[in-house]
């Protein structure tokens, strides 16, 4: 979908002749509100679910297969990235039944390295672009950033929205930026398929749940394949209530248009217990169509090892320790 | 400033008891430090002063708090205010009640220290400790009732919902009573924090040791760091700094009575610079006296450190 096509679809959905900032504002501000206390209570209620035995084993393996294994540090080097990719392919060298992760998430200038390291696997390379994490750069810079990653072979693009534009109500600008980057994904996509686009909101900066809901609908309207909570560089990063709002958005979007969109919470998800809570939420809010790496991902680094420790405990019956999982 | 008393023989708070073999056992004596931000620092000035019992015998060296210690305590109290005032009243009541539980567990230690400090017989000291614990329990039970008794809906003449609710004022400085080293202290401290304020307390100058033991109770209870800060030292030296501190919202002058080198009117004058809420000491005219702490209090000490917020909202279809 080109950005003009995105605009055309948006006009049709909104029922307006021209996609203006005013019409977008009216549409977004007309969405139902979110009661903050009620949303927190629903998330907390879902978090009391107890997942045991075979169900827990399935959930651990599913969570592993949903991980976008991440390194986004200024100090990243080629060897650091290769080491991460090796871990992605063999999370637990002592247990070859361990599933592989979904993707490796790195800065765009490391895409070439990652693509090469993962070439014999099905693991995707997801590159963060568009002046990640702050989003504070010109559109030209953001597009160049994105195209470079695509040409290097990235399968997925994780872009950030301009939160300044969003918070000052320039929704059309946010729309156009997403649509332009989506267009780049389609034009410069790999031989296999157009790259899929994740749009990061940085929910910690948007603060209110109403903003998260509006950002979700806006991003999907503009062409996002996945909506993503955070960069992981700002606290709070992913939370259960924010993810709840986003799952409600993709559920309602599919009811409205028939199109399924994915959700990725990222940052701050460290333990198996946390991951279980997210999977329960996906299950009971969006439905089990989303319980698949094609539609739900975890942006995480330390989570993988905790999942492996829990996996080992289920297999052996006793608690494991840090010496029995590898560092990346 | 009173003249330095002659160094006498130390009072043994626990007499050296014979050990199993009948030989004398040397006790492990306590160190008395400040309680600021949930930790036990010595004074940043490095100074201490001698604390003596009612017979002028040496008890311990207490930290001599300085203006910088007071400054640090205000920072800690301000830092703790958001979370303490934001906790539910039920939670505050639970936390304060637990303090009473821990005080009860330490009653023997408190009784010994109060007896030495105030020259009371053991049975009398024991009674005072019981009163102090009961006083704390009384205040703990107020946490989730203050709003109901002091707040309410106002029947304004228009289609508006209008409600007045009490809120804690912020960081409260308090001069603890000079004579009543535990019961008086509790009677001044508990009403400050029960409603969500945080406190910086200057303990009794000459009878500070029960306060330090209380700070140990606080540190092992669930009271969050910084909610209560206790500074031992010369009241006359440190009080003016608290009275003039622009980030202190209110001040309780109870301990101005019988304090060395202090004129409470000057503290009130200094407080006017940022319009602190001032709770004057008891007594007529310029004489400050220490009240009888054994009488059951009323709501005065709670109300003194509350603001009232009134909110309007239209009622319409």
């Amino acid at each position: 979908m080109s950005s003009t096509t995105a605009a055309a679809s948006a006009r049709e959905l909104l029922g307006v002749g021209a996609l203006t900032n005013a019409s977008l504002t009216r549409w977004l501000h007309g969405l139902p509100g979110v009661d903050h206390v009620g949303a927190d209570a629903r998330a907390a209620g879902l978090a009391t679910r107890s997942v045991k035995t075979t169900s827990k084993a399935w959930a651990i393996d599913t969570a592993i297969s949903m991980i976008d294994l991440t390194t986004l540090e200024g100090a990243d080097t080629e060897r650091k990235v290769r080491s991460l990719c090796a871990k992605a392919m063999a999370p637990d060298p002592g247990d070859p039944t361990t599933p592989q992760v979904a993707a490796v998430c790195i800065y765009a200038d490391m895409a070439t390295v990652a693509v090469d390291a993962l070439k014999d696997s099905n693991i995707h390379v997801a590159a963060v672009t568009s002046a990640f994490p702050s989003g504070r750069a010109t559109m030209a810079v953001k597009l160049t950033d994105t195209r470079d990653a695509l040409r290097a072979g990235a399968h997925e693009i994780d872009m950030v929205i301009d939160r300044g534009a969003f918070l000052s109500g320039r929704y059309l600008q946010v729309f156009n930026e997403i649509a332009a980057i989506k267009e780049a994904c389609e034009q410069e996509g790999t031989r296999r398929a157009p790259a899929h686009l994740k749009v990061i909101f940085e929910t910690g900066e948007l603060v209110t749940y109403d903003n998260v809901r509006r950002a979700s609908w806006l991003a999907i309207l503009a062409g996002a394949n996945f909506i993503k909570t955070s960069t992981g560089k700002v606290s709070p990063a992913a939370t259960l209530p924010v993810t709840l709002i986003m799952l409600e958005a993709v559920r309602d979007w599919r009811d409205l248009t028939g199109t399924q969109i994915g959700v990725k919470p990222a940052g701050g998800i460290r333990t198996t217990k946390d991951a279980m809570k997210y999977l329960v939420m996906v299950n009971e809010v969006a439905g089990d169509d989303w319980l698949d790496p094609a539609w739900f991902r975890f942006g995480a680094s330390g989570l993988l090892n905790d999942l492996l420790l829990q996996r080992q405990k289920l297999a052996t019956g006793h608690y494991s320790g840090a010496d029995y999982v590898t560092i990346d | 400033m009173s003249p330095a008393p002659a160094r006498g023989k130390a009072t043994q708070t626990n007499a050296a008891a014979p050990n199993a073999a009948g030989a004398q056992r040397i006790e492990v004596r306590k160190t008395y430090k400040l309680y600021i931000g949930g930790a036990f620092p010595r004074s940043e000035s490095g100074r201490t002063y001698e604390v003596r019992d009612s017979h002028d015998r040496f008890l311990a060296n207490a930290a001599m708090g300085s203006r910088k210690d007071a400054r640090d305590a205000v920072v800690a109290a301000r830092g703790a205010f958001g979370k303490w005032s934001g906790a539910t009243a039920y939670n505050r009541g639970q936390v304060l009640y637990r303090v009473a539980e821990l005080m009860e567990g330490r009653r023997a230690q408190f009784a010994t220290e109060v007896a030495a400090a105030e020259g009371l017989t053991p049975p009398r000291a024991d009674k005072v400790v019981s009163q102090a614990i009961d006083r704390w329990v009384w205040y703990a039970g107020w946490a989730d009732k203050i709003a109901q008794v002091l707040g309410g809906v106002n029947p304004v003449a228009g289609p508006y919902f209008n409600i007045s609710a009490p809120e804690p004022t912020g960081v409260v400085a308090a001069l603890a009573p000079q004579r009543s080293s535990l019961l008086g202290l509790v009677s001044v401290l508990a009403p400050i924090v029960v409603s969500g304020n945080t406190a910086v307390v200057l303990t009794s100058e000459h009878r500070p040791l029960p306060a330090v033991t209380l700070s140990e109770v606080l540190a092992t209870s669930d009271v969050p760091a910084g909610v209560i800060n206790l500074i031992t030292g010369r009241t006359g030296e440190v009080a003016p700094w608290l009275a003039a501190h622009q980030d202190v919202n209110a001040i309780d002058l109870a301990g101005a009575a019988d304090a060395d080198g202090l004129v409470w009117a000057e503290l009130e004058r200094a407080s006017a610079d940022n319009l602190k809420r001032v709770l004057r000491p008891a007594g007529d005219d310029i004489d400050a006296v220490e009240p009888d702490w054994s009488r059951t209090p009323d709501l005065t000490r709670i109300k003194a450190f509350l603001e009232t917020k009134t909110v309007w909202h239209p009622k319409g279809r």
Partner: protein
Amino acid sequence: MAKFEYAPAPESRAVVTLRPSYGLFIGGEFVEATDGSTFKTINPASEEVLAEVTEAGEADIDNAVRAARKAFDGPWGRLSGAERGKYLFRIARILQERAREFAVLETLDNGKPIKESRDVDIPLAAAHFFYHAGWADKLEHAGLSGGSGQPPRPLGVVGQVIPWNFPLLMLSWKIAPALAAGNTVVLKPSKSTPLTALLFAEVCQQADLPAGVVNILTGTSRTGAHLIRHPGVDKIAFTGSTEVGKDIARAIAGTRKRATLELGGKAANIVFDDAAIDEAVEGIVNGIFFNQGHVCCAGSRLLVQENVADDVIMRLKRRLLTLRVGDPLDKNTDVGAINSAAQLSRIRELTDIGEAEGATRWTAPCVLPERGFWFAPTVFTEVSQSHRIAQEEVFGPVLSVLTFRTPQEAVAKANNTPYGLSAGIWTEKGSRILWMADQLRAGVVWANTFNRFDPTSPFGGYKESGYGREGGRHGLEGYVTTGATR
């Protein structure tokens, strides 16, 4: 089969020690009945017999009232408020310490999900004792003297009869304020849920509560009827059906006995077109399916604005597909067992009537266990105000859905009932909440939430939902006198 089933997650029963039989708790001790028979209490989820319990007869009631009077005239009456408060603090603490035990026992005897006993019933019960412990020595500050200038004093011996839907919580709502004010009590738990009350008697012993201050008489409705008529009882507190509440009001007419009654309801849960829709759906579900709908203040009538009715109903039904009905001891169960065969029969009867009257019936698909008493969550749409299922209290997991066009019409329909216990309002507009709250004839109004309880928050009804309040400053009134008129 769904991808993600969770697997059974049973809470262990081992924390509870059940005795084969229980006596009555009178004068600080467990005693056998003098002239009563025994009956069995069962687990409604499995019909397993849990224990044998005693039915207190008239002589037993007499003994209990006398023990309560002796304690009132003696040790309890002589205690200061501060000392009374300390006993209540002890009881609160012990309830917290034994919380897991109480939660499991409550679930076994009542059938409610362990998630609810553990997270709602037991913590609230302990909190009730905590709150009231603090009032015991502060009654003169509670604004109770009504201008008489006299300090508040206790009434004497209080007879209390509680229902089966929140056994320990209802016990705490009754006993805590009564004791805080200085009264002594004789409490009769419901026939089908006596066990947590009997365990509470143990807590009284552990707290060293003076003998006779609290007396627990298990029994049937006969026991309750005799207790409230006993001449030695100064005040009655009753929670239960409106029908029995009226009986009590008749029975005490012309006497000097005071009563507070907390009775039935048929609350309207009102959803406007500008509601926060996802939270409103949660509120609807919580309003009627929490505790299997065995809640006097349940939001049993959904009043939804007509222009969003189809959408709300669709979302509601979709939400109900994830409700888990089953073993109450499973930590993932959302809806437990119906408390008794009698109650199940009543629910079935009324839902059959609903269908016969012309409403459209929808039932959440779920697999119900073979043994035990179960009813699947059910929603009736196209309900009219004149249908019996819009008027009569079902007291089960059954929702009746009606529509309205304007706020005035919502108010009219919500108030058009002899009941008046509670109501819910869902809208993002603050002024509408406050205007509606003013208009609704209900003792508890929840806006953008539902079924929230707190010891500081007064609870009670208008009209035939009863009179008097429990909780808060207002709840103390029913337990004191200021001497002007008894």
